[in-house]
């Protein structure tokens, strides 16, 4: 069980837990939480992809560090993860805002509540 496998396993489990949550929860806040869990899982996965056992920081400080370039952790996934986190944050913030609106208009946080909108539409 290498470290990488642990990372992969945990990230995949996180993703699946999130997917399950999205599927089964009816409360919007819980669904958003599940989405966040998925995102965390993905971030972990991406970082794991760039992970190198006993790797070094991928910063070229000197010509010395050039020798260790093989051991360096891939920096691109980390950049990706950073972006992804930002986007995830944005999504969550925006979704929570919408959720507040949802609660105001529907009087509940259950996703079922929006089913009957069609019926109430024509007035």
């Amino acid at each position, binding site marked *: 069980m290498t470290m990488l496998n642990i990372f992969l396993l945990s990230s995949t489990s996180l*993703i699946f837990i*999130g*997917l399950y949550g*999205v599927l089964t929860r009816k409360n*919007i806040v819980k*669904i*958003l939480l599940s*989405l966040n869990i*998925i*995102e965390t899982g*993905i971030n972990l*996965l*991406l970082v794991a*992809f760039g992970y190198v056992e006993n790797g070094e920081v991928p910063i070229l400080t000197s010509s010395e560090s050039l020798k260790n370039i093989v051991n360096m952790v891939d920096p*691109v*996934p980390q950049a*990706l993860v950073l*972006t*992804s986190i930002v*986007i995830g944050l*944005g*999504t969550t913030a*925006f*979704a929570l805002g*919408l*959720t507040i*609106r*949802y609660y105001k*208009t*529907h009087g509940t946080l259950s*996703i079922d*509540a*929006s089913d009957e*909108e*069609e019926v*109430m*539409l*024509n007035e």
Partner: protein
Amino acid sequence: MNSSLFLIIIPLMGAFIALFAKKANRLMAIVITLFMEIFSIIIYLSGKLPVSVEIGGWQPPYGINFVLTPLSVGFIILINLAAIISLFIIRGEKSYQFYSTYLVLLAASNGIVLTGDIFNFYIFSELTAFGITALIAYPKDRKSTGAAIKYLILASTAAAFLLIGIGIVYKTLGTLNIADIASKISLLDPLTLELIIILMLTGIFVELELFPFNMWVPKAYLGGTASVNVMLHGMLGTAGAYTITRILLTMFTVDGSGLLVNVNIANSVIVIALLTILVSEIAAFNEKKIKKVLAFSSMGQMGLIIFGFMIGNEQAIVGAFYLVVANFVAKTILFVLTGEFIAMSGSGNWEDMKGIGRKHPVAGLAFVIGSLSLMGVPFFAGFWGKLGLIQGAINGSAFMVVGIVIVLITAIIEGIYFLKIAHTLFLEKDSDREYLSKARVHSIVIAAILALAIIAIGVKPGLIESNINSATDEILNSTSNYIDIVFPRR
């Protein structure tokens, strides 16, 4: 050609400025969009296409690049056209949020088309999702909020799939550049490749309104205003159609054939496309709310386009491009007019729209023309698409022939409900019903011009044939036309 960055930067800046421009924000939005439209047309006609723009001078695959080909710029033109139309038919929105979000959406959908980098693609598609969700939710009432939430959840879940796919691509190929991926795709082992394709397809199919990924569609169309509908269909839908050409037909193809690398996946996609057509047309058959009918029809047309792309031979792809254009124009007419009709009759039900066609014959005729084009009647633009599709399918395997038979059967259903609605417009008005308002002239003018365009293309398909042929050529010879642009030295 670095100026093509303006296509994204100007709207983003506009989105920021809109926070401060109090009353002028509508004007500003129009100016920006018009500028973009003119600018993209200039690019298209400049003769410098195709070109790859390296941002910051970083060479791909290490830097981020934009790819400007006739295909992508053509789509940009369409997207911006839809944007202008949607701005023109806005009813009374004055707040800065709307325009700000709209400009973000514009930037993001342009970005989807222009980008040559798959992670950027992810970011832009997330941005469009935000933008459109905000716009759908903009009326702030019950139905729009519900629709927005539903869409947001679906889109976020799908984006997660997309991101996983991108991650695996990076893990296996070590690159995020589309051209680079396309050239290296044969190095992948089949199972990984399939996993990647499945994950990425899941990501984009939500936006492409394919069944069963499209549970958000009717609600979103119903929740949004008319202008948001035009954006949803004209900007997002068109960008989605572009996505399919890039992701499926450039990135994951057998070199130079226009066919997906994996036949099984291709067949599954065809099945999904056919399911979409079938489900959407049948669902629309008995639907009373006109916006939902149009939403279902949009789904169906999207399914048709993807079916065309998936058939993969030249005729079918030409047909699919014709369908993209025809669907774009015809649906825009219908959405624009539907907005007016709903405002007039005060009801979203098409049965309550009796007599509108008699009051506004031009609008009624434009509606009929739009529906006939969608049905694929000859001498209207949609026919050439349908013709190409059928021809391509008949030249293809027996599976495709079955598919085209299903398409034709659903065309019957589509014809019935569209003409039923079109005829309802010409019924005599119920005496107890008064129109709440008058139709706005500029909407009708827009619809009429687009209707004339449909007839022009229908009678003389040669008008856009060269453009479509170059686009088809680009897809069929993706190596020479895409990879070589990005990596001229290889």
